[in-house]
């Protein structure tokens, strides 16, 4: 009788283990197959943007297949405004154009444009506008499987 009990317990344990293993495998749609997607959040200002230009370049050099979307809001939109310059006096037109040409998308928060009274017409042509930056960052992760990165 005791032997039966032990055998039953072992069987149950085996089932339990199998079930757990199955559960671990199924929700993984990002199990390493398919294209890696990353959303870069830029919300701090020109200095962060300067660093991000280098990060983005390195990122694509190392993993050219990565789909990258930059979402800018708050002071993070500064580098996408026409005429913006970094501490050295260089404009962002060249690096943004080069990244856009490699497939990087630049999305600017419309709430920020309103709050800071910046017209969409003042943005670099490579930038697109989305209704709300924070919503876009959350949406890309939750709905489209993007990984989050804040340089």
């Amino acid at each position, binding site marked *: 009788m005791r032997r039966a009990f032990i055998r039953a317990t072992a069987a149950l344990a085996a089932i339990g283990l199998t079930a757990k293993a199955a559960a671990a495998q199924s929700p993984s749609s990002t199990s390493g197959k398919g294209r890696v997607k990353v959303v870069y959040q830029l919300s701090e200002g020109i200095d962060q943007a300067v660093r991000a230009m280098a990060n983005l*370049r390195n990122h694509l050099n190392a993993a050219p297949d990565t789909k990258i979307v930059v979402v800018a809001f708050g002071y993070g939109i500064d580098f996408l405004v026409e005429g913006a310059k970094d501490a050295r006096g*260089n404009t962002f*037109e*060249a*690096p943004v*154009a*080069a990244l856009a*040409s490699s497939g990087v998308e630049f999305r600017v928060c419309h709430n920020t444009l309103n709050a800071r009274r910046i017209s969409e017409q003042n943005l670099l042509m490579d930038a697109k506008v989305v209704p709300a930056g924070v919503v876009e960052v959350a949406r890309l992760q939750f709905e489209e499987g993007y990984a989050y990165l804040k340089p």
Partner: protein
Amino acid sequence: MNVKRRDVLRMTAVLSLMAATGLITEAQAAEWNKTAFDGKSVADVIKALGGSGIEKSSAITFVAPDIAENGAVVPVAVTSNIPDTEQIAILVEKNPNTLAADFTIPAGTEPFVSTRVKMGQTSVVHAAVKAGGKWYVASKEIKVTLGGCGG
């Protein structure tokens, strides 16, 4: 007035009419200056554009980066302060074909253009301007860290 300018003006008038009636395609295709775009040197290109020589001018403002991180996308901007500017051309000396782009400035349009070109390697880039029937140039060396013509 020399023959070339009269031809250009006539062509422009014809094109405007065709544009209004939607018949633009054939005229445009016929007009593309293949000889100029096949040119392998500054001299070849200027000759194909109807010039007999080229003179340095400090009245041309040529804005371009000193170093291009990505040779595939190099922003260049040209402003001509020479009176009667009718044409602006961008020449990249070390590219497989020297002429990158050629712009016609109709009356009423500012003698200014900004665009993005590919550079295969570090090279002198020339902003050539045709004004009053003569060709003038301002030049600048642009260093390229990652060539952009492909191959």
